[in-house]
C-alpha cells in the first residue's frame, strides 16, 4: 500500500540463479516488489536491495551506482541495459503484467 493507502502494483523481477542463491530466494523464478511510481530500474533495484541486502553491489556498483558491466536489464523483449536508470519502465512492467529481467551477460566461463 502507498502512503495514501492506495494499492501499489507489485513489480515482478526475474533474477539469475546465482543471485537467487546468494539472496536465499530459493526455487522461485521471480520476486515481486512494491515500487512506487514512476517505476524505473533505479527504483526497482532500490526496492530489491532493501528486501535482499546481500544483493548490494552485485547488480550495480557501489559508489557510482552504475550497472555492473556483465549484468543486463530486459523488459518487454527490449534491452534496457543502456537506458537511463531513471527512465520510466513500460506500464505493463509497472503493473506487474510483464517482468523486469536481470540477466548475467553470456560471457563464457
Amino acid at each position, binding site marked *: 500500500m502507498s502512503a495514501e493507502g492506495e494499492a501499489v502494483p507489485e513489480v515482478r523481477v526475474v533474477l*539469475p*540463479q*546465482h*543471485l537467487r*542463491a*546468494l539472496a536465499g530466494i530459493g526455487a522461485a523464478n521471480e520476486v515481486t516488489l512494491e515500487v512506487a511510481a514512476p517505476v524505473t530500474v533505479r527504483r526497482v533495484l532500490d526496492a530489491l536491495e532493501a528486501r535482499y541486502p*546481500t544483493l*548490494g*553491489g*552485485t*547488480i550495480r*556498483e*557501489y*559508489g557510482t551506482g552504475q550497472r*555492473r*558491466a*556483465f*549484468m543486463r536489464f530486459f523488459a518487454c523483449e527490449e534491452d534496457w541495459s543502456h537506458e537511463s536508470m531513471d527512465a520510466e519502465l513500460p506500464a505493463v512492467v509497472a503493473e506487474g503484467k510483464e517482468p523486469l529481467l536481470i540477466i*548475467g*551477460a553470456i*560471457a563464457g*566461463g
Partner: protein
Amino acid sequence: MSKVRVLVGTKKGAFILSADGKRDKWDVSGPFFAGWEIYHLKGSPVDPNRLYASQSTSWSGQVIQRSDDGGITWAAVGNKFAYDGVPGTHQWYDGTPHPWEFKRVWHLETSLSEPDTVYAGVEDAALFKSTDGGATWNELAGLRGHGSGPHWQPGAGGMCLHTVILDPSNAGRIYVAISAAGAFRTDDAGKSWKPINKGLVSSFMPDPTAEVGHCVHHVAMHKERPGVLFMQKHWDVMRSDNAGDSWHEVSGNLPTDFGFVIDVHAHEPETLYVVPIKSDSEHFVPDGKLRVYRSRTGGNEWEALTKGLPQKDCYVNVYRDAMAVDSLDECGIYFGTSGGQVYASSDAGDSWTAIVRDLPTVLSIEVQTLA
C-alpha cells in the same frame, strides 16, 4: 584426537576436506557457493569455527561470506570495499596510467587475537581491515598512499595484493606482497609502509633493481622466527634474514626457479617447500612431472619429492595461495592444482596421496589443525 580441516577455494566453489589426525580418511563437503570463484578461505586461530570466504564473479562482483560453525552454515557479510579518497592511477600493462578499480578480494588474513578482525588483500592492490566480523571494511590507506602507487603495475593475474602475514611477536608488524609492485612492511599496524625489495632483481623492469615493480608471487614465514622470510618471486626463490630489509637468492639447484607457492614446515623453520614451474609463459610443471622440492637447509639445497605424485604426462600449475601446512607432530603438507587435485602428505613431504582428484581448478588451500 586432533583433526585437520582443509579449506579449498576453487574457480567454481568452496570445499571443506576433513580428517582425523591420522589423515588417511577424508570427508569432502561442498561445493559451497557453487559457480562462484572462491579465491580464499581462512579460519580464525582464536576461534577455529569462525571462517571467512572471498566469493566473487566478474558478473556480480565481490561477496564476503562468514561461518560461525566451522563451515556448516554461512552468511554474507559486508562487501563494500571503498578506497580511501580518490584512488588515482597505477601503471597499465603498457606503462600508461590506469585508474585504480576494485575488482576482488584475493586473500583474507584473520587476526591472531581477535576473531572479528580480519584483513583483506584486494585487486587493484590495497589492504582493507574489518574489526566487526566482516560487516564493514576500511582501507589501510597508508600502503597505497606511501608514494610509489603510480609505479605499480598488474601481473598476468591482475594487480593483486595476495599475501598478508601478521607477525605474532609484534602486533604492529604486517608484511604484504603485491604483483607487480613487490613486498612491503609496516611496523605501526598499517599507518605507514615501506617497500622491502632490496636484493630483488627483475629483468623485465627498465631498472631491474628498482625499489618497486617486482612481481612477488608469494612470501612465507615461520611463526616462531618472524624475522626470516622466504619468497617465491616470478623468477627466483629468495630469503631475508632481517624482516625484509634485504634479500638474497636461495634458488640453488632447483630445476627452474619460476613458481608460485612457497611454504615452511610447521616445526622446522629451515625446511621449505616450493613447486617449480617451467616458465612464465608455460605455467605448468617441467617435464610432465609434478614435483615438490624441499630444502632442509633454508634454501639453496633442494630435493625432489615425487612419491605418490604423477611423474609423466602431468601439466598442472599450483597457484600462489594453494599450499599450506598443518601443525600436527608429523607435519602435514597440502597443495592444490589447476587440474583440481588436492594432494596431502602426512610425513613432511616424503610421500603424497590425493585427497580428491576432480575438483574445479584449485585457487587456494588453507589448513586448520583442530584439537
